[in-house]
């Protein structure tokens, strides 16, 4: 069966520090991969998605970037964190190419910027 791992679960970082959140999927090949951000008490906002290695699409301009160095690895990064980067970050995967297939989410990372 397929599983998705996301870490760390919780992270507290100072303003201006770098960020690296990692997500890996097991049990499937060539998944679509996604990074979402959820502000407190709000819905999810899609940040990035990837349909293959090295292929990244950005949905909103921001201070963050994403990379996909391997088929089942998706990384969310920042060179310098802002206070507004605080939130709950969720990684997700889905089977390609059909959009009727649901997305499966990781357990999320709670990021607090001080």
């Amino acid at each position: 069966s397929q599983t998705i791992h996301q870490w760390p679960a919780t992270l507290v970082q100072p303003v201006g520090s770098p960020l690296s959140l990692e997500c890996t999927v097991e049990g499937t090949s060539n998944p679509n991969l996604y990074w979402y951000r959820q502000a407190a008490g709000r819905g999810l906002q899609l940040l990035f998605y990837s349909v293959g290695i090295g292929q990244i699409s950005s949905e909103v301009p921001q201070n963050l970037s994403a990379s996909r160095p391997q088929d089942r690895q998706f990384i969310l990064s920042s060179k310098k964190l802002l206070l507004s980067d605080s939130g709950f970050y969720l990684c997700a995967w889905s089977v390609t190419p059909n959009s009727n297939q649901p997305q499966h989410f990781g357990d999320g990372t709670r990021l607090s910027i001080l």
Partner: protein
Amino acid sequence: AQTVTQSQPEMSVQEAETVTLSCTYDTSESNYYLFWYKQPPSRQMILVIRQEAYKQQNATENRFSVNFQKAAKSFSLKISDSQLGDTAMYFCAFIASGNTGKLIFGQGTTLQVKP
């Protein structure tokens, strides 16, 4: 642009009773898919049910069912025999066919099941 609206920020229901969560969406697409996700306090996002727009029959998964009204662009979730474990935030989500998995989420409805 597609949008998803959940007009009920919070709802509560007594255990064993039935509750309906509302969701409306706006799109010019003719082929799309709709989902309900549940996010319990643990924050994990869990798929509850999905509906293909081309299917007239409403989807059902055990105690969960939907009322899909395509003309009205409405997609409500009914939870029967509510259980304490149903306490969670519920999100309605939309995706246009062939849109590379770009889910659009509503703002969410917090459901409290009371004993």
